[in-house]
């Protein structure tokens, strides 16, 4: 149980005589018992951030506080954090049960209590049957769960997990995720985990910090990230498949607003929106975003497209639609859409599904008191 706060944390590495800014002025305030996901692609600074909290990376500037106390100057062992490493870092000469129980030996608790805790966490992670084996004779997935168990068994105020389930297959991962979530909630533990898998972030985290190039892009719930992405990066990163984003020009008229979608610089189609739909819009060139499952395919639609591919995934169909050279991904969450390659189809972007981003800084146009939104 703990709150973790990062205040303006930066980390600069020196490499080949150049300074590389791995984490850039990161501020994150978490709540007690919250599960936080650090999400981003490789090199975004998420792992450096996690290792800075654990104490394996010395921060260049800023503060890291656990329950209001500065911890960034403390060695890892004095920080009261538990960590599972991406590379597992198991002790080869110890059996799986000894690996998991190792950190408990320092605590003054009886062997039978240690055994009980080890068994509980092992059964939670489906590794009870390998407790007497040595790491070398177990699979990568089992080693990863051992490393996860070793961190969770400590019930530290804050648990740090680096790509904790990357070696598990989809179904096992879903099961382990739910159980870890219940375990953390049951013991009211806070956790921060790093992942490049947004599904993992969406299902496991209460709030997600999306990072890119060392900078925090947005810190919000999954629903909020999808509904109101702050900028183009978040919009194109979150969602599977991610949002379609295309350049467009805007003409403000008396009868509403005409949006001309562009492929490179060539107009490919026009949308007509009412002024109330675009009341925050203030530029003539924008980026238009729409999530794949919100695109409507119907015959009387303002845009025409051609089906390039149609992949059926069982409970949804993913289609690639070419609108005069502009390719967009369309998803039907219903069962199979019987559309064939080469078929012509009407495409509509419902006004409540369209999001506009600034061409200059990539930020989403939103409520802003300094902007005249009388239109």
């Amino acid at each position, binding site marked *: 149980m703990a709150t973790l706060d990062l205040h303006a944390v930066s980390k600069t590495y020196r490499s080949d005589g150049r300074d590389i800014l791995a984490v850039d002025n990161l501020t994150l305030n978490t709540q007690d018992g919250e599960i936080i996901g650090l999400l981003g*692609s*490789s*090199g975004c600074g998420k792992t450096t951030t996690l290792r800075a909290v654990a104490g394996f990376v010395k921060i260049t500037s800023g503060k890291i506080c656990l329950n209001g106390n500065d911890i960034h100057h403390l060695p890892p062992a004095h920080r009261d954090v538990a960590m599972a490493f991406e590379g597992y870092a198991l002790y080869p000469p110890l059996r799986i049960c000894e690996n998991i129980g190792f950190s408990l030996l320092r605590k003054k608790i009886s062997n039978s209590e240690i055994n009980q805790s080890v068994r509980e966490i092992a059964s939670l992670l489906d590794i009870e049957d390998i407790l007497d084996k040595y790491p070398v004779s177990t*699979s990568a*997935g089992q080693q990863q769960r051992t490393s996860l168990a070793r961190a969770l068994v400590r019930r530290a105020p804050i648990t740090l997990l680096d790509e904790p389930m990357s*070696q*598990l*297959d*989809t*179904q*096992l991962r*879903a099961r382990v995720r*739910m159980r870890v979530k219940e375990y953390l909630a049951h013991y009211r533990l806070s956790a921060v985990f790093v992942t*490049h898998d*947004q*599904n993992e972030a*969406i*299902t496991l985290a209460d709030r997600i910090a999306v990072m890119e190039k060392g900078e925090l892009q947005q810190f919000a719930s*999954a*629903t909020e990230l999808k509904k109101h992405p702050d900028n183009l990066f978040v919009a*194109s*990163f979150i*969602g*599977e*498949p*991610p949002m379609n984003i295309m350049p467009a020009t805007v003409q403000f008229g008396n009868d509403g607003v005409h949006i001309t979608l562009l492929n490179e610089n060539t107009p490919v189609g026009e949308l007509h929106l009412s002024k109330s739909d675009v009341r925050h819009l203030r530029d003539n060139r924008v980026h238009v975003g729409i999530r*794949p*499952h*919100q695109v409507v395919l119907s015959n009387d639609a303002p845009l025409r497209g051609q089906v*390039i*591919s149609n*992949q*059926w*995934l*069982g*409970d*949804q169909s*993913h289609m*690639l639609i070419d609108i005069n050279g502009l390719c967009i*991904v369309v*998803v039907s*969450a*219903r*069962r*199979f859409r019987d559309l064939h390659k080469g078929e012509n189809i009407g495409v509509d972007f419902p006004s409540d599904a369209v999001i506009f981003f600034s061409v200059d800084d990539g930020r989403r146009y939103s409520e802003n008191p300094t902007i005249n939104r009388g239109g």
Partner: protein
Amino acid sequence: MARLEIDNLTKAFGSVPVFNGITLNVERSETVAVYGRSGCGKSTLLSILSGALPAGGGDIRIDGRSIIDAQPEERDIGMAFQNFALYPHMNAFDNIASPLRGRKKPPQDINERVEATAKLLKIDNVLSHFPQEISNGQRQRTSLARALVAEPAVLLLDDPLRNVDAKLRYEMRLEMPNLFRRFQSSVIYVTQDSREAMALADRIAILHNGQFIQVGPPQDVYEFPRTAEVGRLLGDPAINLFPCETMVRGDSLFVNPVNFPVNITGRYQLPSTSKYLAGVRPEDISMSVAPSANSHSIEATIESITLSNIRSVFVVKTTTGEKMTVSCPEEETQQYATKQRIYVYFPEEKVSLFSPDNERLIKQNPSN
């Protein structure tokens, strides 16, 4: 551009059997996704095909020619891996060129081949860069280019999209089938992602307990799983399996999964009071806040809601205490909350029956 035959292949590690004689043909220009749980032997199969591991017995043939005793470099097979396995001391160009170097091709040929392949994969602008200087996506494309550059007869792909972000994964998922068609490769694609297998494959081969338990086009395998295990494996979340029993009411035959009478008259010819497992996919169960007017529905309470992409997953509990997994389109999620009373319904034709003993699919009447 060749036909790959895996013929009664066996393999054991010490006394532990991995394959007890597996057979699979991959036709010219066909992509077969090999899918199974981790530890099912998918990667072992690729290692044997590529020559990194010896087979126990059986044969592997490319266009009728046995390659089982051939050295890896003589097999005419290209490979790409989930961890990319690029040579860190070589730039992207040399990485891609490496399969051609061993073949003593003239330098001009090598240059042309590498550049053409790199262009197709949109990495022609990073050829002079080293692996550590390029993005993950570019590394993935470099590794794919290296596998394709020699236009091998057979392409083996070991979960190549596993370590790339969603944007790139979907881009590649939609691009790759066109790429394979262009190279006319016969592809074995190993993945741990059932959706990826569904999306990319001409056929899916389900590997379980050392056997291919079902091989067929994605739609067939998904709609008609031969065993309950195939149903569980292919589908995310997994298929619901409810114990049920047949009963006769008048002229009609019913089964009663979750105490919901399902009329199977005509579809099945089964003895009464016999036990089965009724399989219903989560997306085939519909949910509503009010009972449906023209069909009976089951009263239930929402236990948990897991947000996911495109579809959300619900665990609901019926008034008689049975749990089921239901999925619904993401945009319909907001009308529901945990602990809420709801009504669920599934159409009769979406119920498949399996034997409770061996979990095999029960055959329907041929007329249906």
